[in-house]
């Protein structure tokens, strides 16, 4: 068994990661850290894990060496402690944004921070297996993906790879768990329930990842908007793609099958009947799937591509375990076989 510890395990992503690792055939959870909850049993914070483990949170200062270190800290923390973390484990998977982007200028622009360890940026691989599988397999350091970015990139990648897109507007709908476990005025239930609340209408940091990952020789012209809706988990990216040349639906199927036909966690969902015709995050909660669907508009060059995920799974913890499986040489789907619930 490979020993794994989680830094920042009291948050939602850290808790989901702990659930997955506890159920994983090849990982043994060694330590989980939380400054606020040190000494307390994990189920105080993660009630679903009651009876699953005797683990208690420990302080960061008590962190011991292990094989794989998962970092689930808020943005802007891991980047200041990477040398220490790297001294404790051969492999690191960082779920935060601290090592996602290659260009330090992006951190100045999107995260208003002068990156303290820019020389580490090239050492981290962007952890989206469907696009960087071989690179991840041979990496020691992998960065997690942004949840809104993950579903958008996966939806758009086949079209951008083939240089078919003139311009795209990505309109993402998200649940409340994206905001993390810290309560705010905006997340206060009477204020948050039932909203259709534009969150970052004209500038969202996840755009930096799209621009980085979808650049195939020319800087992609993409616009990004996020709207919070009445859900806890889930992210749905509605991508309005304006193509250079119109394509038929049949050609789209061919393109998406070519890129994703063999992918274990991508399902193509574009049906002509039934109430589940297009991707919907509601049925993906707890699963590592990204469902992708598309619709061609007659008489225009617009194609609407939809990508749905569970932001805590394929958008965070699930994707991190998928990447770690590749890094450690385990089967890529190990510990990730929960299919989601319906109805839910």
């Amino acid at each position: 068994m490979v020993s794994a510890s989680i830094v920042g395990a009291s948050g939602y992503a850290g808790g989901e990661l702990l659930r997955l690792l506890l159920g994983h055939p090849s990982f043994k959870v060694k330590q989980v850290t939380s400054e606020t909850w040190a000494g307390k049993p994990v189920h105080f914070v993660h009630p679903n894990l009651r009876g699953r483990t005797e683990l208690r949170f420990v302080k960061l200062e008590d962190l011991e060496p292990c094989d794989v270190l998962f970092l689930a800290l808020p943005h802007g923390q891991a980047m200041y402690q990477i040398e220490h973390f790297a001294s404790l484990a051969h492999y690191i998977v960082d779920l935060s944004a601290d090592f996602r982007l290659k260009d330090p200028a992006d951190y100045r622009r999107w995260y208003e921070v002068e990156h303290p360890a820019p020389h580490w940026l090239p050492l981290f691989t962007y952890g989206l297996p469907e696009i960087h599988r071989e690179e991840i397999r041979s990496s020691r350091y992998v960065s997690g993906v942004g949840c809104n970015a993950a579903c958008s990139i996966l939806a758009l990648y086949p079209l951008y790879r083939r240089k078919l897109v003139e311009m795209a507007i990505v309109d993402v709908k998200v649940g409340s768990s994206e905001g993390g476990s810290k309560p705010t005025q905006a997340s206060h239930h009477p204020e948050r329930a039932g909203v259709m609340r534009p969150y970052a209408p004209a500038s969202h940091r996840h755009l930096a990842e799209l621009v980085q990952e979808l650049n195939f020789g020319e800087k992609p012209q993409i616009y990004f908007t996020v709207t919070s809706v009445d859900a806890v988990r889930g992210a749905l990216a509605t991508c309005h793609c304006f193509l250079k040349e119109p394509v038929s639906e049949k050609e789209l199927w061919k393109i998406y099958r070519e890129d994703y036909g063999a992918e274990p966690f991508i399902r193509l969902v574009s049906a002509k009947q039934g109430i589940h015709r297009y991707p919907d995050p509601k049925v993906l909660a707890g699963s590592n799937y990204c469902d992708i669907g598309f619709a061609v508009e007659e008489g225009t060059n617009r194609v609407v591509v939809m990508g749905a995920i569970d932001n805590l799974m394929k958008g965070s913890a699930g994707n991190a375990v998928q990447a770690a499986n590749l890094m450690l040489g385990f089967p890529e789907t190990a510990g990730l076989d929960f299919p989601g619930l319906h109805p839910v």
Partner: protein
Amino acid sequence: MTECPECGATINLPPGTEVGEIITCPDCGVELEVVSLNPPSLELAPQVEEDWGE
């Protein structure tokens, strides 16, 4: 090995526990103070009543 005075759960004092330390009962979540190590015994620590405000 000792017992939580509130709910009777069996509690193993981890090695290195010191008298006066506060530990949490895993079953009923109450805060307990270690009053002796040999034999190990626990007493209810002063409680801060959280107000849910519901």
